[in-house]
């Protein structure tokens, strides 16, 4: 019991801070063609990337703002800095990282985590990768793990071959915005047959008021290779609105296995609009393990296109929506090849007037015979001022698909709370425990340290309900 009480202490302080950094280079507030050109010039990019960015910019400008989810019209694109560069060059070792930035990461616990078991660390401070180390072991295996900007220069062939193939710039308004102004993010290449023994992880942070964060992640896993990538986000809290528009592309080549884990905890003023998609080829397995606790509004549906026979998709999506938050999350599985399988599990918690929306798409295209698919969505509502929505889209165009879908919405049962309170827990602790149990399908998939951190985040959210 004592352990439980310790965890309930308010630890938000630890995640909410703001350092004054001297930015060496940044674009002017607002977005224009010249902003895009400026970003590309800062980075000394090849011309094809500049042209790609400009095409994407044109598409972004003419593409209508989506209206199927509300509140996006509140984003003021003119009041955002699209590119900031906190230091001149990529740092090779921890010692070279500027002190202020280092302090930020120390508070987040990166060095400690690295000591323990991490294979590589990519840390994003504002819009640039500043610190990146790849253990010798991985280098020997031929695994590439670096900032996306650096990969564009150092691995131009493999980069250009895959960049934008999974999420085209024209895919949606925000993928176009990302393609126009992207900066930072991780690039991972795992060569044929290589199994990366430990998870690769990157910490992301937004710092600086009204800083846009437009990272771009590209993960290419070659035939028979295996990797687990983890991203976790924390961000300082500000009063005005911030914007995070990311694109993540995963290419899982035949026989490979990829797991991508996210713990998203942006501060409650961030609009988090992310396009995440994987292409899964023959006999490959792709897993998205995705949790969203932070942000003001998240719009994110991790997707898997099952393009090769016998591919497997597994998506676990978890959302906690507190006061003022709207988690518009979900998952998509698109079956394009025979004998493919998919499983989607979604769990959401809404409280204190928060809104949790599950939006999913399960599609079986003509020719994708013998598909087995399942979708399960459960929602927990902790009070009657919150809201929970479930919008599953199921579109089956084959005659031998086996698909099941189930969704339930409920509240914390009074009997369970009573039972736990009779064992000495406070009501809040009891509710905490029940919520954690509800989300365990997610936490049990995490490495231990992350599971602890995630449970802490959930507790922080629950703490808010008392204040």
């Amino acid at each position, binding site marked *: 019991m004592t352990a439980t009480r310790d965890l309930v202490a308010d630890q938000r302080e630890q995640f909410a801070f703001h350092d004054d950094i001297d930015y060496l280079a940044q674009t002017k507030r607002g977005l224009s063609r010249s902003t895009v050109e400026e970003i590309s010039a800062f980075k000394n990019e090849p011309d094809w990337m500049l042209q790609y960015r400009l095409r994407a910019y044109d598409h972004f400008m003419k593409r209508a703002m*989506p209206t*199927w*989810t509300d509140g996006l019209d509140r984003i003021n694109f003119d009041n955002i800095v699209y590119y900031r560069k906190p230091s001149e060059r990529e740092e090779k070792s921890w010692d070279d990282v500027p002190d202020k930035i280092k302090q930020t990461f120390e508070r987040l616990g990166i060095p400690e985590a690295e000591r323990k078991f991490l294979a590589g660390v990519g840390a994003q401070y504002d819009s640039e990768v500043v610190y990146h180390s790849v253990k010798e072991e991985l280098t020997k295996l031929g695994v590439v793990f670096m900032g996306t900007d650096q990969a564009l220069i150092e691995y131009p062939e493999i980069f250009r*071959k*895959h960049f934008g*193939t*999974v*999420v*085209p710039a024209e*895919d*949606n308004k*925000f993928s176009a915005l990302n393609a126009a102004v992207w900066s930072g993010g991780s690039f991972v290449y795992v060569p044929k047959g290589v199994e990366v023994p430990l998870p690769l992880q990157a910490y992301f942070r937004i710092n600086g008021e009204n800083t846009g964060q437009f990272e771009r992640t590209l993960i290419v896993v*070659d*035939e028979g290779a295996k990797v687990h990538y983890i991203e976790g986000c924390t961000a300082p809290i500000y009063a005005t609105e911030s914007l995070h528009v990311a694109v993540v592309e995963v*290419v899982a*080549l*035949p026989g490979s296995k990829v797991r991508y884990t996210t713990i998203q905890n942006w501060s409650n003023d961030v609009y988090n609009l992310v*396009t995440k*998609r994987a*292409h899964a080829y023959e006999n490959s397995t792709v897993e998205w393990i995705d949790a969203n606790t932070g942000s003001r509004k998240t719009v994110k*549906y991790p997707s898997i*296109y099952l*393009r090769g026979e016998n591919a497997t998709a597994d998506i676990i999506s978890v959302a906690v929506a507190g006061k003022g938050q709207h988690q518009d999350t979900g998952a*998509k599985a*698109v079956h*394009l090849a025979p004998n493919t399988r998919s499983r989607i599990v979604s769990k959401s918690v809404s409280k204190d007037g928060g809104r949790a929306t599950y*939006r*999913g*798409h399960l*599609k079986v295209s003509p020719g994708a015979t013998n598909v087995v698919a399942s979708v399960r969505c459960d*929602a927990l*509502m902790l*009070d*009657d*001022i*919150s*809201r*929970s*929505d*479930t*919008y*599953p*889209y*199921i*579109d*089956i*165009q*084959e*005659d031998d*698909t*086996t*698909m*099941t*879908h*189930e*969704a*339930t*919405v*409920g*509240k914390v049962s009074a009997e369970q709370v009573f039972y736990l309170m009779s064992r000495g827990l406070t009501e809040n602790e009891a509710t905490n425990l029940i919520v954690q149990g509800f989300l365990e399908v997610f936490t049990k998939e995490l490495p231990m340290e992350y599971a602890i951190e995630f449970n802490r985040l959930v507790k922080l959210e629950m703490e808010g309900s008392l204040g």
Partner: protein
Amino acid sequence: MSPVPREVTLPAGAPPTQATEAAAPAARPARAPRRAANELTFKLDQATVAAYAGSEPDWLTADRQTAFGRYETQPVESNQLYTTYVDLRTANLADVVAWDAAVPSAATAASGASLPSGAAGLAAIAENRVEGVILDDESRAAGVILDTVAGVLARDPELARRLLAEPSSLPDDDKLAQLTRAAWNQGLVLHVPAGIRLERPIVLRWQAGEPGRALLTRTIIDLGEGASASVVEELLPSTGAGGRTAAQALFTGSLEIHLAAGAELAVASIQDLAEGTVAFQHRQAEIGESATLRWALAQLGGRLVRSRVDNRLSGDRSSVEQVEIVFGANDQLFDLTSNTRHIGRDTTGNLLSKAALLDATRSYMKGLIIIEPTAIGTDSFLGEFGMNLSKQARAVAIPSLEIDQPDCRRAMHSSAVGPIDETQMFYLESRGISPEDARKFIVLGFLEPVVARVPLVAAQDRLRELLESKWDAGALAEPAVTAPAA
């Protein structure tokens, strides 16, 4: 490393909704004329609506005008969740003309229509003709009214006004519902006074399908406190109805239901229009305290059917049970929406939709359960099940939930799409039944829940026959049953 193919026709996009719309038309062979999927080719103008005014009271003309204004401004699909699953492209209604309004003096019980055995009443309208309105003496004596709208306007203008001008009896934001409200040319009213319990069903028979003609109808069912009734709605081809290749016809129909406290209504509908007919149906029920509504809806006919059911459980302890089946063949499209709104306390919703799809049939089953903040103690279930019987068939299910009140007895939906169960096949075949018959029995059994709920035995038998003959026609046209792999 194997080459990565470029993305061409894959559906894509952050919104699960937007993408397929853009991709789908490109993937199909070009059709002429090429139209937007949500374009309504039927044209209604102010003059047509104004032409009804001559024979009608002012309040009714005003009601039509208000509806016409909404018809002009509202979208075909008002719910953004469903905008990608709208497809009116098989409805070619540019040359379709509405019948003139019903003549108030239209004869009742004039022609050959006779009361079906076991029924308490019959109202039959074919195209622009009232074939007959018959009510047995017992019901008439009890104060039950079964009449055309024209008849009710003449005999009880106040009742007519209360029922027809009720602003919320059809959805305001729905273009097609407002089309019907603006331009209806035939109408029926069933009114059962408080406390009256009709033991035998009332039959409402509509016949439509005359090529180039539009029959637009409103039907209002009004049950007083503690009243009970059952209704069999039959939607049939008229004698002149055209098939798949004929010029198309349009049928639109509303069913506006008002259930006062404690009322009970069962509605069974058998829709078997010709395949040259496009049908738009809007059913909306206001369900009062402790009142109960039971729907059994069978959708078989029509080229394109777009149907929307709105169940409003406004009274405490009110309940609705809805069972809907679709049995499609050729390239029929069934676009079916069910909205259930829980408003009162301790309300119950139990909805089940099932589709068996032959050939290149499409079925879009959209369902939305809304639990409002006031709806404490709700029990709501929505099930959507599909059976694709051909490789060209397409089953879409969108069972949605919007929940503002967690204090529910139950709030869930489930959905499944699967082929014919091999173990059921094996069982039947082991009893000496041929594979063809086994398939037929399993499919008809899948659809049986609605058949069993049709209150009139004759109508029940006829629905079974319709399902069976449709199966036989489909099975004949199809290649032989695929043999299990040796």
